[in-house]
């Protein structure tokens, strides 16, 4: 199967069940909301090394936020609901509460909810106050520019982590261009994030390592510089650069939709193939087949 001149490999992305949440950050200006969101989603590329994966879902116009100020929607994923709660307390406490003029709200009605503002409130040193409006409890924590307002609880729901695309191109320039175009298109999809730097990862990994203490190591099959010394390289002779886009989403449909958009945007002259990473179907709960995505099916 091809899109334009690019071959779409008959394979699947193997994704995993994670737990996710949506956080709405607002501030007096769009810039401050983005500053808090960038800080909160920093060092959150992979759950293996960062305990969570997080990213900016989209910017929100003032009309779409709970307090009618400019906002940013952030998605955060961890391996279980309690993990999401812990990461929220850490990251909202350290990255959002600290950022001038911000407030922070729950963005989903999840299966479960985690107490976040109800823990951060202790920073108020007994000067904090709460307000309940329409069943929603907000905490007002006194800070040096006024008050930090944060929801008491944040919803958490099952999500999907590890959806991915591998873009195999002839040159770095061409492959980077395709990857950026793919990420831009995927950001139009709702309920997904691409947690790596600007959505793109070059250090794709495989499970395990020659070093026993490491759980993951470089995906040598896709490293062009190793093509001459490994006997199981996955790269053809004219494939000189591989970039990966990892997608986490609040549902399998959301991840699939983003992958579909990404493939269409990335396919172009100079991109030889688009593939996906998997573990033979033995580890992940979800298999998202590329051909079926393009045929209109989900997986």
């Amino acid at each position, binding site marked *: 199967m091809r899109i334009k001149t690019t071959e779409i490999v008959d394979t699947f992305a193997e994704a995993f069940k994670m737990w996710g949440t949506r956080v709405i950050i607002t501030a007096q200006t769009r810039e401050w909301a983005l500053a808090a969101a960038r800080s909160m989603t920093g060092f959150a590329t992979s759950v293996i090394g960062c305990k969570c994966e997080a990213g900016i879902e989209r910017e929100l116009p003032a009309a779409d936020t709970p307090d009618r*100020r400019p906002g940013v929607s952030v998605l955060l994923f961890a391996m279980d609901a309690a993990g999401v709660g812990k990461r929220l307390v850490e990251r909202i406490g350290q990255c959002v509460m600290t950022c001038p003029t911000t*407030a922070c709200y729950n963005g989903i009605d999840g299966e479960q909810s985690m107490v976040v503002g109800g823990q951060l409130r202790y920073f108020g040193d007994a000067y904090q106050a709460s*307000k309940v409006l329409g069943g929603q409890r907000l905490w007002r924590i006194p800070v040096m520019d006024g*008050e930090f307002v944060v929801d008491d609880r944040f919803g958490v729901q099952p999500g999907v982590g590890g959806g991915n695309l591998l873009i195999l191109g002839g040159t770095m320039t061409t492959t980077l261009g395709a990857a950026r175009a793919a990420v831009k298109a995927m950001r139009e999809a709702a309920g997904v994030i691409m947690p790596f730097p600007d959505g793109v990862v070059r250090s794709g990994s495989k499970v395990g390592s020659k070093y026993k203490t490491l759980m993951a190591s470089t995906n040598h099959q896709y490293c062009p510089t190793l093509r001459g010394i490994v006997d199981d390289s996955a790269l053809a002779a004219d494939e000189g650069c591989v970039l990966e886009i990892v997608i986490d989403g609040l549902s399998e449909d959301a991840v699939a939709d983003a992958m579909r958009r990404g493939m269409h945007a990335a396919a172009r002259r100079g991109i030889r193939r688009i593939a996906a990473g998997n573990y033979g179907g033995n580890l992940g709960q979800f298999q998202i087949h590329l051909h079926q995505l393009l045929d209109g099916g989900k997986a």
Partner: protein
Amino acid sequence: MSVTLTLHTQPEVPLEAECLSPDRLATLDQAGIAALPVLHGNRNMTVGDFFSVDGGKDLTVRIIGDLGRVKHVATGMSGGHLIIDGNIGSHLGLGMSGGEITVTGHAGDWVGPEMGGGRIVVRGDAGHMVGSAYRGSKVGMRGGEIIVHGRIGNEAGNGMRRGMIAVAADSGDFTGVNMIAGSIFVLGRLGARSGAGMKRGTIVSLHDAEVLPTYSYAACYHPVFLRHYLLRLRQLGLPVEEAHLGGRYRRWSGDSVELNRGEILLFAG
């Protein structure tokens, strides 16, 4: 089929009609509603002696007429929608826990005393003691919302612990007296001695006001939490302008004769 009661005989003295509550009428047919007991002064009478009844067995009830002398309507109401097409007497929605009451005219004293939930909307003015505690009782309103599109009298929110009272025009004296917590919004002017004896809670006015000497000025700032309330009030039809949402408010802390954890927020532009 919704229930409609139309006043055909104006009571000569106050009429106590606790039974006129949607959740109680919902199980009754026309005859059953007409036979419900009411107290006319000190005489036992029935609903049918004063109202013609149309329909039955429905949680939406409309009462038409000048009910200025009818008291204790919707006592303990837990659900449904009561529409009073006219004025209503005192003690409306006493201790109600759910549902909604809409009054198209004016309401007497003691609107929603010690209520725990639900919503009362008065399109006209309301009297004294809105959402208050009864004399001798320590706790007034415990939850829910009271929205008054006109003015309110004295001692609104006396002993209030939770919930919201919002008034589009002015409030009388001692607004939020002995308040324990909760929120009172006066889009007009606050009466004298507002917040006297307040422990916690919030009183907001969109005008400047004279604050008791037992309050301390804290700051002039942008209270973000207020935006949530003001948006809610706007949604409920109160005249909240964009300037009020993004404006600065002077914060006064008090009352220092009590816990000193309450606040009065006055719009500063």
